């Protein structure tokens, strides 16, 4: 198990390094002209050159990268080009909002998805048909569209939940829940459907396996077979889909946050993108990849615990 953990840790570190390197060279090396974007078309060549020198953009890309890496390893992600705030500070204020939203959404999706998937696998018939419809609808309707609908209906018209705004959980847990309920619903609908589909398929797969018949032959009750054996063996596939869905959900959160005006990474990322604020975009990318890597690592370790074979490989 220790070896397995170490291998997973090293893989995760390599992944972060590769993705941030690629991102850096794409952002700083592309033939786009961020300074012109920032200063506007009217800026003179001297103004642009001065600004580029100030931001260190006149140096070779390799050199810029080296200094970014050195600083990043010390927790310094540079300064925003637009508001001159340290990127790391801005991110620290915003990550908890997005993370809270995404984690709550994945938990809600997993609970609903697993329950629905097991029910569909067990009872088949109309439950199964219903699930297939929900899966198609959940796939076809984008989360942001569903979010605008929720915001309009339950936020504006019915007034059950705030349509906009955010309350920190440290101020009021109830307040926080009321501000994230609609965003979580918007995100969870499609994800829960996708998880349910996968859980259904893997439960049906496991139920066809020989050892389930062997367990029946030993007089083990059907409920115990489902809970202790079928679900346990279906869990690795479910965890895999949960980790894949979590990655998608982080992206979805960025759009949905904008609709409900949550001060998370979403608004930051989009503003930075449209303004060409390269250090902030870089920081957002780094932070999301870190989140993905940590979550995947956690799921891998759970995988190792529930699946004795995974540890060996």
């Amino acid at each position, binding site marked *: 198990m220790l070896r397995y953990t170490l291998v997973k840790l090293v893989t995760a570190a390599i992944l972060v390094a590769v993705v941030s390197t690629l*991102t850096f060279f794409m952002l700083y090396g*592309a033939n786009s002209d961020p300074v012109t974007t920032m200063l506007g078309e009217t800026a003179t060549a001297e103004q642009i050159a001065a600004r580029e020198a100030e931001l260190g953009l006149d140096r070779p890309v390799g050199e810029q990268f080296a200094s970014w890496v050195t600083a990043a390893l010390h927790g310094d992600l540079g300064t925003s080009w637009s508001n001159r705030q340290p990127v790391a500070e801005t991110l620290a204020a915003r990550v908890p909002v997005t993370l809270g939203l995404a984690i709550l959404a994945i938990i809600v999706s997993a609970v609903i998805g697993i329950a629905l998937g097991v029910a569909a696998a067990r009872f088949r018939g109309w439950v199964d048909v219903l699930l297939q419809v929900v899966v198609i609808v959940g796939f076809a309707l984008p989360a942001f569209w569903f979010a605008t609908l929720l915001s309009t209906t339950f936020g*504006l018209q019915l007034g059950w939940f705030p349509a906009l705004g955010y309350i920190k959980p440290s101020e009021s847990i109830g307040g926080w829940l009321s501000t994230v309920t609609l965003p979580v619903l918007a995100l969870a609908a499609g994800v829960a459907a996708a998880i349910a589909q996968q859980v259904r398929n893997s439960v049906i797969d496991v139920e066809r396996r020989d050892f389930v018949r*062997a367990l029946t032959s*030993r007089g083990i009750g059907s409920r115990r077979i489902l809970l*202790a054996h079928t679900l346990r063996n279906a869990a690795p596939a479910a965890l895999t889909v949960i980790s894949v869905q979590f990655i998608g959900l982080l992206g979805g959160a960025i759009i949905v946050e904008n609709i409900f005006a949550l001060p998370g990474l979403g608004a930051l990322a989009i503003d930075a993108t449209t303004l060409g604020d390269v250090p902030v975009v870089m920081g957002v990318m780094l932070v999301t990849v870190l989140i993905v890597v940590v979550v995947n690592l956690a799921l891998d370790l759970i995988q190792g615990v529930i699946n*004795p074979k995974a540890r060996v490989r």
Partner: protein
Amino acid sequence: MSASPSSSSGGLAKAILRKPLVIGSGLVLIAIIVLAILAPLLSPYDPNVSDLASVLAPRSPEHLLGGDGSGRDVLSRLLWGARLSLLAGLIATVTAIVLGVPTGLVAGYRQGAVDAVGSWISDVLMSIPGIVALLVVVAAFGTSMPPTMIALGVLMAPGFFRLTRATVVSVRGELYIDAAKVAGLSGFRITFKHILAVVITPILIQASLTAGVAIIVQSGLGFLGIGDPLVPSWGSMVNDAYRNNSMAPQLVLWPGLAIGITVAALALLGSGISDVLNRTGSGASSKAAKGARKAVLVKDAQRPASEAVESRLVVENLRVAYPVADGLKEVVHGVSLEVKRGECLGIVGESGSGKSQSAFAVLGLLPSDAVRTADRVQLEEVDLLKVGRRAFDKVRATRIAYIPQDPMSNLDPAYTVGAQIVETIRAHEKVSRADAKARARDLLEQVGINDPDRTLAAYPHEISGGMAQRVLIAIAVSCNPEYIVADEPTTALDVTVQAEVLALLRRLQEARDLGVILVTHNLGVVADICDRVAVMKDGEIIETADVFELFADPQHPYTKELLGSTLSGSEPRSRVGDRAPAGSASETPATEGEER
């Protein structure tokens, strides 16, 4: 996945076209594509021209779907938006296919280092959060649609890579590839001619899903205001609707419907195709169903049903059928048999003769779609036809137990051997975990495992097949049953281990006075252990006889044929010693122990 490519492509296309779901979603897609292409002709207004009088206008003859927040015609924008969405889906999907399929082909065919590198890159791409990466691309290359969709295609290429690779790996080992190699075709041509034909349909399904995802992501970006403001898009329409949601809540409906219908049509097309694929395999045998319900020939309906059963397991007129396209297909046609305690009945037959189905039917282990009927299935005083699941569970393991064919697949891979023995004991007896474990240890010793403590703590994948079969035998006898049904208990084992396991079975049978039904295709096994033999062919028992009589004087021509095809070495145990067999290999005491 392993369907041979040449045989079915024509029939498959026909089967796919017969599905209403596929036709319906296909027609919807074609309609959307035509509308998008004809948008410049069809749209009543310039999609970008604002008309102050039409701001948030309701539906009217002039503006069929009303006007948006800037007074632009909603219908015109919807039609023009389709162009952008479909183009986005096309660019992303083509990029993903171009990158994913050839690399998947090479990785799956070459394997080794190429495969490792490809798989690693695909893992990296899969763990990048899509929208954030696209924002990076926008920051680097600007807001126009093609670069972002190419980037999305790159991010989605792993889907195609994995699919292609997995298909190639599964197909590659198959015989016709080897045959093609022998025929002197070059590696590359083999890959293309044979493998591509198999891979093409899953790729189509994946492509329809990819296009759907791309359309959704592109609208998401449009919704965020990323994109050319002069190019109408469904996403920017949702944004406009959202900004005006208090005044004109209906506006959000149209782009939502457009996205939803397009993506759903793509998804349904994909799942419709895959449904057809999954069904063509199983429906093939349905023609045999008509002839299946022929007259019953019950050779050995020995006793009237009313007679009391003492110390016997009795089966009368057992039939098993499965639903097929046109009704039921019967695979067991009225089998009758019985076995006394202390007796071993062999059921011999070729694969597909219905012998395993008969065994499962007796144990109540048939799949849920099987239809079982019988005049009688009786375990001494228990009528197994009438008991419910709970009552059946009570006699399972305690009175009638099962030894399966493939030892490795019949243990739950997630639990240790010890946990699985303990689970069975504790399902039937109120004993403490520690006591149950001590008994499990004891049982493992009884079945000839030398290091029971290590085996108890081992997971199934850590022990050998022979060891696993001993464990399954230990579980079968753990609650002291009176009868055991063993389904090909030695077939999956190495020849040397087979003899030991048979010896173990015989030892346990004699020591515990078990009534055993032993299903096998191997007459050697029958000769070694059985007292009586029932010969099965095509779902019927054609001959039942004492083992010595059967070997000495087979009545049915099929039995003679079976005996003739068996190697000469396997004669029944010497009649003189009866229970003391002469020199069979299986007499050596079971000492297997350390074979991992």
